[in-house]
């Protein structure tokens, strides 16, 4: 069984679905304008005060593009008084003045997404000319302000040959770490899955061949780091739905912040309790070592097998012949 927490210390929120980019792989199916159903900034502020009161001490904020949320800096400043705040962004709205404003409002760490080491690859995904240079400038401005900054990249067929280049680039820019993330079958990524997804062996080879420059941290969640994070995950998407983990947003709903608190849902939502308990059919012994979790990521396990207890096909020990470069029938777009 997984460790059991009576309340979550860490929460992730997708504060808006609005974004200036048009990423082909966008998990949130974001648009340039927010949807009417999104929580307003005052609703978010009230919710975040409640989270702090309920014991949350770390808040991860993503989007869409969080900086497009009207009133975001005020919310950040308030949240940062009681919680360690992390901001995930494409960086295209971060100039020197915005970097200073983020620092002055207490942001703890910023994570900047890039999708390639070249403008050609990055902008094939974002579909916005100039967005690559803007993201790199953002990293420079953040580092200049002394804000701990990471670069994130989602591993795909198109950028696999450039991941080492991203590590080298991030080191030159002064980033502290690079996080290489697996691709999830969500939102628009599902619709182009066969174009952008790599077979597992190619993913593993790409990760194994990486050589981080001295001083740069590398984060990756492939074997032997494939955790089942559900025991500690808590997340809310832009419309207030409580989804446990951002990668489960299309498959679960534990309630809505307009009707309940996250703590109440944590205590009462049956599926959430089941997922946190960590009952799985198979577990990789190597990946169980560090966090005591079992079975690997539940989002990809459920996506490919349709069972919450299934083995995670992104772990070579548990893969059992599944080709993760092909979507299962149940996920194929209509």
């Amino acid at each position, binding site marked *: 069984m997984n*460790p059991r927490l009576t309340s979550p*210390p860490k929460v992730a929120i997708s504060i808006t679905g609005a974004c200036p980019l048009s990423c082909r792989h966008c998990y949130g199916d974001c648009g340039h304008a927010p949807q009417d159903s999104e929580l307003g900034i005052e609703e978010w502020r009230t919710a975040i005060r409640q989270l702090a009161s309920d014991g949350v*001490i*770390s808040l991860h904020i993503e989007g869409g593009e969080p900086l497009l949320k009207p009133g975001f800096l005020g919310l950040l400043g308030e949240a*940062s008084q009681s919680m*360690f705040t992390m901001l995930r962004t494409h960086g295209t709205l971060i100039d020197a003045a915005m970097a200073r404003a983020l620092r002055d409002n*207490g942001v*703890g*760490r910023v994570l900047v997404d890039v999708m390639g080491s070249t403008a050609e690859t990055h902008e094939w995904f974002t579909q916005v000319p100039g967005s690559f240079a803007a993201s790199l400038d953002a990293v420079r401005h953040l580092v200049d302000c002394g804000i701990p900054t990471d670069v994130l990249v989602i591993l795909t067929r198109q950028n696999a040959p450039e991941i080492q280049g991203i590590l080298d680039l991030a080191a030159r820019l002064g980033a502290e770490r690079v996080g290489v993330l697996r691709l999830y079958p969500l939102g628009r990524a599902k619709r182009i899955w066969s174009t952008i997804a790599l077979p597992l062996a190619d993913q593993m080879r790409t990760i194994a061949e990486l050589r981080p420059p001295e001083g740069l941290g590398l984060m990756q969640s492939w074997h032997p780091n494939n955790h089942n994070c559900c025991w500690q995950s808590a997340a809310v998407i832009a419309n207030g739905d409580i989804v446990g983990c951002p990668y489960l947003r299309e498959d679960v709903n534990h309630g809505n912040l307009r009707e309940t608190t996250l703590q109440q849902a944590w205590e009462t939502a049956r599926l959430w309790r089941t997922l946190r308990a960590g009952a799985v059919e198979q577990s990789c012994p190597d990946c169980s070592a560090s966090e005591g979790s079992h079975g690997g990521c539940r989002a990809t396990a459920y996506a490919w097998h349709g069972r919450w207890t299934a083995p995670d096909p992104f772990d070579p020990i548990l893969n059992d012949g599944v080709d993760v470069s092909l979507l299962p029938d149940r996920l194929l777009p209509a």
Partner: protein
Amino acid sequence: MSAFSPTDCFRLEPGVRLRPVPELGHCLAYTPARPALHRLNPSAWLLAELADGGSFEAIATEYGHAVAELGGQADLPDVAAGLASLIDLGIVGRVDTHGKEGV
């Protein structure tokens, strides 16, 4: 030899928030003045909880009692080193007995 005198007093730095996670045997500490989240082991957690404005001597005595209850023994250099680490992280500060705060 301790870097602190027995009458030096200590307390949490302003705004520091402790979030015990007893299920995992540690405590998270957030330092808003230098935004960072630290994981404190049980010894550091206990020292942070004891730093309520009291003197080094009082903190060391209470720490020693707590450790003794668990069958252990606390040495003054261990307490001093633990407090020094918490000061370095911005979690605990020395109280200026002349009315000014800070280390």
